[in-house]
């Protein structure tokens, strides 16, 4: 089960990602908390990478990043790179932590959010132009978002964990 390539698995992932992207871009923009919109896509990517390990996690990160670049990015690659690295990190961390206790993924999401935002901050600054001061961004963008994601993981991780246990991602058509 672990090493087989499941096309349905990735189709389901694409479907979930698109829904998350549409929700955070069109619906959540009306319900800002502290002027911040959470990156649901990142939470899903990190949680799935946490559950599935490096290889699959990375593919999930690439799918999420590519979709976000297509929808909202001015160029392809900003979120692709950031989400791939985030997934990889989460998968590496998951080897050392119990997967069936929620605090592990919550803390992972919290710290990976900083890494993700830092990569985007750096890439945007280098390729696109960005005048935001790093410490300003750290305090007003990275930290509130990390806290937001930390809390939201309580909602998403159990759902994904249960979906994985019940083989939701591996439907059989017999």
């Amino acid at each position, binding site marked *: 089960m672990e090493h087989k390539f499941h096309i349905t698995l990735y189709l389901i992932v694409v479907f979930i990602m698109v829904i998350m992207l549409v929700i955070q871009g069109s*619906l959540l923009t009306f319900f800002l908390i502290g002027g911040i919109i959470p990156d649901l896509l990142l939470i899903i990517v990190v949680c799935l990478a946490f559950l599935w390990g490096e290889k699959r996690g990375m593919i999930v990160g690439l799918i999420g990043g590519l979709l976000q670049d*297509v929808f909202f990015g001015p160029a392809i690659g900003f979120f692709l790179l950031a989400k791939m690295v985030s997934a990889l990190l989460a998968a590496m961390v998951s080897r050392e932590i119990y997967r069936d206790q929620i605090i592990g993924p919550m803390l992972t999401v919290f710290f990976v959010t900083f890494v993700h935002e830092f990569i985007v901050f750096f890439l945007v600054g280098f390729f696109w132009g960005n005048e935001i001061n790093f410490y300003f961004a750290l305090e007003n963008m990275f930290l509130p978002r990390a806290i937001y994601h930390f809390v939201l993981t309580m909602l998403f991780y159990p759902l994904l964990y249960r979906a994985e246990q019940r083989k939701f991602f591996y439907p059989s058509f017999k």
Partner: protein
Amino acid sequence: MGILALIILFLSMIFFTSEYRTRYTFAEDLVLTGLSPVQGFLSKVGLSTFTFFQGMFDYGRVLEENEVLRKEIAKRDNQSYQLLELQKENHRLREMLGFKIRVEYSLLPAEVIARDPSHWFETITINKGYADGVEKDMAVVTASGLVGNVFFVSRNSSQVLMLTDSRRAVSALIQRSREPGTIGIIEGSPEQTGFLRMINLPPEANIQKGDTIISSGLGGVFPKGLVIGHVLEVGKDQYGLLQQALVHPAVNFNRLEEVFIVIELPFEEGQGLFEVEEDEEEENEG
């Protein structure tokens, strides 16, 4: 090793797509076109839920505001008739003087269906695309003023880069003084999100708190005379040589629901709202 190769690949991809990508690929277009109705629907749901709760929480204030606005409308109605008369008169006099009206504009209404949730790019998505005649670089406005310009176009939706993006520079001038040389650059204020700043103003520029800033029409993307915002404070730039001003935008960028795309009408006499690039062949009397 493989990871490093991927990272290098993606870095070069960002470089090439940010420099040379001027339009969506077929696959991107397909995805965006397919999902724009879903985005439109969700954004409507979000808006109505938001307004429902907002209305519930401050019903009293809404009633009061309604009353004030009714009176305001009655006043404005009266003014708009007068303006229409003046516009007609202006048109007639221009014809008599032989001023050429070279380009006119029409306004295409569009709904905002999404906005960049990452905050790194100040972009919104609207529900009109090349099927409706929208093209890259067209100006986007609301009734209150300038919003930004079209950045990418798919079949039924477009991405708009807003003025608050610190990469979006617009040439602007001060409506009150109109002195030559007071043209400054308007860009997003990086530290005060939602505000704009006007930079590169010469030290002798006549600018003060409360002044209205309008687009200058230089640069070709934005028509002249669109309201950008009002000056909040004036100060020296970081080197103490030039002046700069903090500008409160006329448009509320956090609550954009409906916008208009400014479409250029080719060489035709019409009743357009905006005029630019006039050949002012002023004849000296005497």
